[in-house]
Every structure is written in structure tokens, then in C-alpha cells.
């Protein structure tokens, strides 16, 4: 009898194990929900504190601002804004549309914006994107470069009534309204200020989704908000963001049909991705450009005549070959200093760099000789090598330069172990040769690629390039009353960069994504974030 009982128990155990195993693959798959890869956000999920793509994914589903960038064209279109009026490109009156609420029922009013912006700009709140408000008058009072804030709120902001507020800028900035699609300008409900800790646990916004549950470090579930008042309602029942520690694992999971969407194809899989996914693979320009900046604070690089050397170096780089062989076309050779992701409306115009960005080793050699040769006879490229494939492309660029100059020792690579150290060396101006610089746009406007990077004294002008002509053109562009006229001026400013070559444009970075056959209508917006609300399931 004992033997029989034992056998029965064993059969039972096997049956349980089999049932459990059978269920394993399908657990967690719910109807109409998009299962997408995610990474742990690198900041608290506050709109003005998020400047990387993982937190950006959540904000894109959770918030709608005054403007929204069209996912296809990148053009800024009114969302919550009914109209934004100005007569002098400096004082703006913003009127809100009626009928918008947060998902907790609170109405979105002019206060929702002004309070949020004041919070973002105030130094005490230590928001990473505070500098977006530097154009607003009185920013230096709430956010002084040193010392304590002398005001709590931005003097340039004023609420007129529930649906109207005014903004006074420090200087003329004609395309300023088009920057308002950035997440940092999102409105915030009272709950954000009244119970901040609870809000951070489960953020509340006014976008097409609401957060169902948030398990930090593993997953976030978002559900379609059925009462969402906007025109871009979610086409799926919800989105499940799953944290993957490794993009290779996410890719395997996609192939096993356990995941619907990955937005970062691992580089080791690039050679298989076409075969694996066919037309379910997206590879399109993102608003990211990589450049090699010259230390213009070093007289060896800035003295007259050296522009020839700088242009020559640019022409010695075989961009086509490097993007093809190292990056398998996930980078596009750059022909200007902005990004195709801007679209024509944003001010992108291919080829502004002209011949200087084309590969011509003979002309490169001649130009460098005409300019007096490389400073000290040789150059060193510097970058951090702890992430990306920086080491690989730097070697390739050096190779390309050495071949053009017929000198094996003309160009060498100086790898820096950590990003923090690299950043430190840059900010202390210790560079003696070209160094890597990457720029990811904040909003799809040509202004964002030029002013913060090459204007005299600008925050990310690491090479300390300074050209009064360039600065004038930027100022003029900002004072223009139409976007087209402003773009034309900015493009003129780019031509000065082409002459002076303070930074060599290398390539535009692409955004990539792959998806399962369970979903359709997958697109990436200009920030390489999937447009989740448009995805259809089944």
C-alpha cells in the first residue's frame, strides 16, 4: 500500500510540474496590451528632472504639454495650447484649450503650468532640466549661478485667468513656442506638490495613459485612460514596460514571442536583424549627432590658418566606410551640424557642410599642408571608452586620417577609462586635440543644435569656439518673426561652422526598434521613443 501511495504522489507531482511548465510561457500576457522593453529610469520621474530616454518613455505616455511634436514630421503642433501670441518675439500670451483634465479629475489650468514651471526652475528643487527656463525673465533670481535663490517664482510668468498666462523672456526668441513640446514644460496636478512622495510612487498626468502599477526596477503597467480628452487616444488597451538588464536578453525574448517591442537592437545582432524581423525592423535617424570638437581654447588649434587643418582633417575621414562597416548603417554620415530628425520644418538642410564633409584624401592632405601641418606634427583623439563603441570608431577615424596623410603615426587614440573622468578633463579644458562630443536634441529645432553648442560662452560649448559673426546670425534668427526666416538665418550660421570647422560632424545616430507580428503601426518619434499610443495589437 505504501508503494502505491508513493507512486500516486509522484504522478501528481509530475502532472503539477507539467501544468506549471506549460503555463510558464503565457503567463502575464493580457489582451490588447503591448509588452515593451524598458530600462530603469536614471532619475526620479519628474518631468523637469528626466533627460534620458527610459524616463522619457513614461513621460511621453503620461503627459501632454502645450505643444506636441508630430511623430512623423517633427513639427510642433498645438496640443493644450489654443494659441500662443506675441507681437515682439519676447512677450508671449498663452491661451489654453478648454476641457483638459488630469486623470484624477483635476482641471488643467494656467496654474498647472505656471506652478510646474516655477517648481522646475527653482534651484531648491534641484531639477536637471532647470536650465530650460533660463530664457524666462528672472531665471537668475530663482536659479542663481551661485548662492541661494532670492525668489521662489519666476517673475517672467503671470497667470491672467484660468485659461491664460503670460511669459516674458529675457531676450527675443521667436521659435520659443516651438520648444514647448519638451517634457520639462508639462503641466503638473496639485497632487505633485501636496503629496510629492506619493506622486513619485505613482505619477499622475494628463496623457493618454494612466499608471496601473509601478514596481521599481522590474516593471510598469500603464492602462489606456478611456476619458482622455485629447485627439491622440491610445489604440491599445495598455502598455507593459518591462525592465531588461541586457538588450541581448530583450532581443531573445522578442524572438521567443514573449515581448512585442524592443527599441534598442544589440549591436551583435545587427547582422541578423533583417533576416530575423524583416520589415518589423525600424532604423531611422534620431536627433543625435556625434562630432569631434577642437579645443579652440588652445592657441595651437585656434591660430589663423588652422581652419584649413581642421577642414582637412574632416575631409580625411571616410564616413561612409566607417558607418557601413562598424555600425552597419545604424549611423548616417553627417553633412551638417544638426540632424535629419528635425525635418525641413525644424530647419534641417542636407549638405550645409559642403565639400568639407566629403571624403577626399588628396585634397585633405593638401589642405593640412597649406595650413601649416598638424600642430606638433600629430594629433590625438580623446573619448571615454567605457560605453558605446567609441574605441572602435576612433581607431577607424585615425586609420582613415593616417592613410590620407601617408603617415602611420599622424593620429593616435587617447582612451579615457570612465565617462566621469572624460567629462572632468573636458570641463577643466585639458584637451590638446580633437575630442568626442555627442549631442541629443531636447526639441526638434535647429536652434537646439547650434546655440547651446557653438554660441560664445554657451553651456555645452566645450571647445570654447567663439565667432561674433556666428553669434550675430543666431541673435538675428531668434528675432525673426517667422520660423522659415529664422531657419534660414540659422542655416547661414551653419555655413560659418563649415568655414571655421570648430567641430567635425561625424555621423547622425539612428534610433532602432524591432517588434513582434502581434502588433502593428509601430513608429519612432524624433526622439527615438516609440509612439506607444498608435500601436495596434492583434
Amino acid at each position, binding site marked *: 500500500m505504501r508503494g502505491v501511495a508513493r507512486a500516486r504522489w509522484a504522478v501528481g507531482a509530475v502532472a503539477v510540474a507539467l501544468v506549471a511548465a506549460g503555463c510558464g510561457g503565457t503567463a502575464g500576457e493580457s489582451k490588447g496590451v503591448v509588452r515593451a522593453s524598458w530600462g530603469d529610469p536614471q532619475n526620479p520621474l519628474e518631468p523637469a528632472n528626466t533627460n534620458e530616454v527610459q524616463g522619457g518613455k513614461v513621460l511621453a505616455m503620461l503627459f501632454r504639454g502645450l505643444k506636441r511634436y508630430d511623430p512623423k514630421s517633427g513639427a510642433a503642433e498645438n496640443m493644450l495650447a489654443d494659441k500662443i501670441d506675441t507681437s515682439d518675439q519676447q512677450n508671449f500670451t498663452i491661451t489654453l484649450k478648454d476641457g483638459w483634465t488630469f486623470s484624477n479629475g483635476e482641471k488643467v489650468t494656467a496654474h498647472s503650468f505656471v506652478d510646474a514651471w516655477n517648481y522646475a526652475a527653482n534651484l531648491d528643487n534641484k531639477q536637471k532640466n532647470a536650465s530650460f527656463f533660463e530664457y524666462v525673465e528672472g531665471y537668475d533670481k530663482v536659479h542663481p549661478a551661485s548662492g541661494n535663490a532670492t525668489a521662489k517664482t519666476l517673475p517672467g510668468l503671470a497667470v491672467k485667468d484660468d485659461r491664460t498666462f503670460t511669459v516674458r523672456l529675457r531676450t527675443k526668441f521667436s521659435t520659443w513656442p516651438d520648444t514647448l513640446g519638451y517634457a520639462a514644460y508639462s503641466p503638473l496636478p496639485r497632487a505633485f506638490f501636496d503629496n510629492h512622495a506619493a506622486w513619485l510612487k505613482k505619477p499622475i498626468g494628463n496623457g493618454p495613459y494612466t499608471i496601473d502599477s509601478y514596481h521599481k526596477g522590474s516593471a510598469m503597467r500603464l492602462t489606456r485612460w478611456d476619458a482622455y480628452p485629447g485627439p491622440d487616444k491610445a489604440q491599445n488597451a495598455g502598455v507593459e514596460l518591462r525592465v531588461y538588464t541586457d538588450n541581448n536578453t530583450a532581443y531573445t525574448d522578442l524572438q521567443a514571442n514573449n515581448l512585442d517591442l524592443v527599441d534598442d537592437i544589440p549591436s551583435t545582432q545587427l547582422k541578423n536583424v533583417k533576416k530575423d524581423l524583416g520589415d518589423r525592423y525600424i532604423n531611422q535617424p534620431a536627433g543625435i549627432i556625434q562630432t569631434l570638437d577642437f579645443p579652440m581654447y588652445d592657441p595651437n588649434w585656434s591660430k589663423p590658418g588652422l581652419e584649413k587643418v581642421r577642414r582637412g582633417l574632416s575631409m580625411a575621414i571616410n564616413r561612409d566606410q566607417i558607418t557601413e562597416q562598424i555600425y552597419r548603417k545604424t549611423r548616417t554620415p553627417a553633412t551638417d551640424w544638426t540632424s535629419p530628425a528635425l525635418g525641413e520644418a525644424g530647419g534641417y538642410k542636407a549638405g550645409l557642410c559642403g565639400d568639407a564633409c566629403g571624403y577626399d584624401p588628396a585634397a585633405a592632405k593638401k589642405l593640412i599642408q597649406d595650413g601649416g601641418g598638424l600642430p606638433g606634427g600629430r594629433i590625438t583623439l580623446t573619448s571615454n571608452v567605457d560605453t558605446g563603441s567609441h574605441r572602435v570608431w576612433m581607431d577607424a577615424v585615425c586609420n582613415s586620417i593616417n592613410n590620407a596623410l601617408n603617415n602611420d603615426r599622424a593620429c593616435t587614440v587617447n582612451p579615457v577609462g570612465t565617462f566621469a573622468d572624460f567629462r572632468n578633463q573636458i570641463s577643466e579644458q585639458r584637451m590638446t586635440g580633437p575630442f568626442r562630443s555627442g*549631442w541629443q536634441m531636447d526639441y526638434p529645432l535647429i536652434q537646439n543644435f547650434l546655440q547651446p553648442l557653438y554660441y560664445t560662452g554657451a553651456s555645452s560649448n566645450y571647445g570654447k569656439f567663439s565667432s561674433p559673426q556666428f553669434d550675430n546670425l543666431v541673435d538675428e534668427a531668434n528675432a525673426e518673426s517667422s520660423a522659415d526666416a529664422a531657419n534660414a538665418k540659422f542655416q547661414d550660421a551653419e555655413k560659418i561652422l563649415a568655414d571655421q570647422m570648430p567641430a567635425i560632424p561625424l555621423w547622425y545616430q539612428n534610433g532602432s526598434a524591432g517588434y513582434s507580428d502581434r502588433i502593428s503601426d509601430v513608429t519612432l518619434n524624433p526622439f527615438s521613443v516609440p509612439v506607444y499610443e498608435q500601436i495596434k495589437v492583434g
Partner: protein
Amino acid sequence: MGKYVIRRIGQMVIVLFGATLILFACLFVLPGDPVGSLGGDKARDPAVVQELRERYGLDKPLVEQYGNYVTNLVKGDLGEDYTQRRQVTEVLGPKLQNTAKLALAAIVLDVVIGMLAGLIAALFRYSFWDVLVTLLTTLAIGFPSFVIGSIFQSQFAVKLGWFPLISDGSFNSLIMPAVTLAIIDAALVARLMRGTMLEVLRADYVKTAVAKGLPRRTVLFKHVLRNSVIPVVTYIGISFGGLLGGALITEAIFNWDGIGFALVTAIQQQNNPIIVGVVTYGVAVFVVLNLLVDLLYAMLDPRIRLS
């Protein structure tokens, strides 16, 4: 015995302080500003950076930073991390649980499979089973864990669908990573077990026991097994400590949200509070396990006196 334990605990505290101090000093001399580089390629607002440096006490000298850290550590407070600005204990809590789960499952497999295989190989020396164990353990030691893990995934998860491909919190999803993690250690345990057992089998006291006419089973369990297990216990203790410290590769392959991966991410971001937290915990686990192993010795071998 009681005195011995107290003395060892005293030593442990010193080791813990020494290890964290060295780590602190190392992180301190690392070039670059961990807070200043948080913004990626974009320049950080200097005023915000200054505020954050003050908030995290990075503007203070090393000695003071360490002093603050120790005072908080005693209170069970590991500080706030640089990225999401959450409490380190809150960030690491669930990850520690996950790692512990995996480590426990792996060590159980280690012990059962490894000791059994070693036992059989030693008892039936040069038999088919012995050769098989030698062969399998050679293979197991030779294969890197990412190869084993990937093979498991493609065969058992994708092709056969027996197990979930990656961790989904279920017991089922624990099996593949645990086996992946256990394989190498189990092989080493098997070899160690076989070696020491063969040695003990030749020992005089075993011959004596057999000559006295004790039944084979008594000789085996009371004399042979008990004595050959001592080096194995040492090895398992150390290996368990290693497993509890997080298994980066296995965690990454199976998307296991443990502290191994947390540590690597933290190092890349120079997220020092997380690094210090993980290492402090790792050191603590290691010294505690060492003490337990030493106590186990005394229980297994009465000749060893703890004093």
C-alpha cells in the same frame, strides 16, 4: 566556544570597517565628479551640481564623508543613491532577495549533485560511473556560464517551451538560472569530494574500523563521509558567499533583477552609494559565512578545538 565566537565577531567588525574604508578611499580618488557626469553628454547646470554635491556631502573631506557613512551605517541607513534619489536600502532590498533566492537554489543543487556524483565516483573508482563523472565535470568546468545559459534558453525555453525564457517571478523561472549557476560549482564539488574520499578511504582509522568488523555502512557514514566532507564544506561556504554577492552573467542572461547587475550599472554610472552598499553587504555575508564554516568544522571533526 562562546569566547571564540565573540572574538571572531570582534574581528568581523574590524574587517568590515577596513573593507569599507578601502573602498571609500578608492572611490574618492577615482577621477571625475559622479554628480557632474549624471547628465550624460550635456553640461550640467553648475548650480544644480553644487546643490547635489552638498546634498550628498561630496564637498566634504574623505574622513568626514566616511565618518558620516559609518554613523549612518550603524543606524541601518545606507544613504540615498545619485540617480533616482531613493534610499539605497529600498533600492537593494528586492534585489538582495532575488539574489539570495538564486544563490540558495544554486547551492542546494551544488551540494546534492556535486556530493552525490563525487561519492559515487570515489566508491566505484575507475568504473563507468567514475569515468562519466570525470568527463562531465571536465565539460562543465570548461563551458563558460553564458554559453550554458544561452543553450538552455534556446533549447528548453524557445524550442521546447518547458521554462520561461527569463525571470517572471515564478518558481519555474528559477530553474534554468539556478542550474546554469550551479553547474560549474557542482563539478568542482564533485571532484573535491571524490579526491578527499579516496584519501580518507586509505586512512588508518578507516582500515582499523573495517578490521574491527564494523558494518560497511557504519564505516562509510560515520567515519569516511564525515571526514571527507570538511574540505567540501569550506569550498561550499566560500562559493555560497560568492553566489550571494551576485552573479552578473547569469543575472544578465535571465534578466534576474539581482545585485550583480545592480553593481555593474552602479559602477558605470559612478553611483557610489549603491557600490558601497553592495560591497558592504558582500563583505558582511562573507565574514559571517566564514565564521559558520569554522563552527561547522568543530562539529564535524571533534579533533578541532575552537579556542
